[in-house]
């Protein structure tokens, strides 16, 4: 049973427009959420994160929004650039019980067309 779901396997966006990647979770104990970006033949790299005490975190062109009541988070990329083309993984973890292992979604492949 997937606790972290990225329901869109792929997303295609025009350069300069907004990319919105979505992530849903089922475990209400998750209190920290992360986005990773992965290029082919490379390991994932950390992109941005958000704690459950916030509803928004912004870093340059990247903004993550968290809606706890809906158990939903989204990553906004504005403006999108061709170099943003990659697979994006959503991850969530819980601090309770001493567990710190993140649970990853299956990823969304973003293609930004010039």
């Amino acid at each position, binding site marked *: 049973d997937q606790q972290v779901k990225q329901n869109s396997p792929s997303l295609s966006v025009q350069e300069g427009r907004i990319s919105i990647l979505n992530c849903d979770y089922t475990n209400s104990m998750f209190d920290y959420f992360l986005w990773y970006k992965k290029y082919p033949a490379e*390991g994932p790299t950390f992109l941005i*994160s958000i704690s459950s005490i916030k509803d928004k975190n912004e870093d340059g062109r990247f903004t993550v929004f968290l809606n706890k009541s809906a158990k939903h988070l989204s990553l906004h990329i504005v403006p999108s650039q061709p170099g943003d083309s990659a697979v994006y993984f959503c991850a969530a973890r819980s601090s309770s019980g001493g567990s710190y292992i993140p649970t990853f979604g299956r990823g969304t492949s973003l293609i930004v067309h010039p």
Partner: protein
Amino acid sequence: DVKVTQSSRYLVKRTGEKVFLECVQDMDHENMFWYRQDPGLGLRLIYFSYDVKMKEKGDIPEGYSVSREKKERFSLILESASTNQTSMYLCASSPPGVSYNEQFFGPGTRLTVL
């Protein structure tokens, strides 16, 4: 900068062979992880270790074992490789406990089992 290195980028082995995948990190991180990434399945945790000689099973440990004799090195062992273990293997490390933010990933090893 944290650096996580993996011994091979590409590896081809035959069914039944014993395979060793090595991972080394240079940031004195307590936690180390092994994942496999398959299309449509995201990142799945095989094993992790939070200290030297300590190991914990992840979500898919069957067919794998690990070794952590030194803090900086975490090895993944396929005792008898099978074709369904053809995958991208990713090693990661992180500081201890719940205070950390993100994991740092190596570049991955693309393993093909014939």
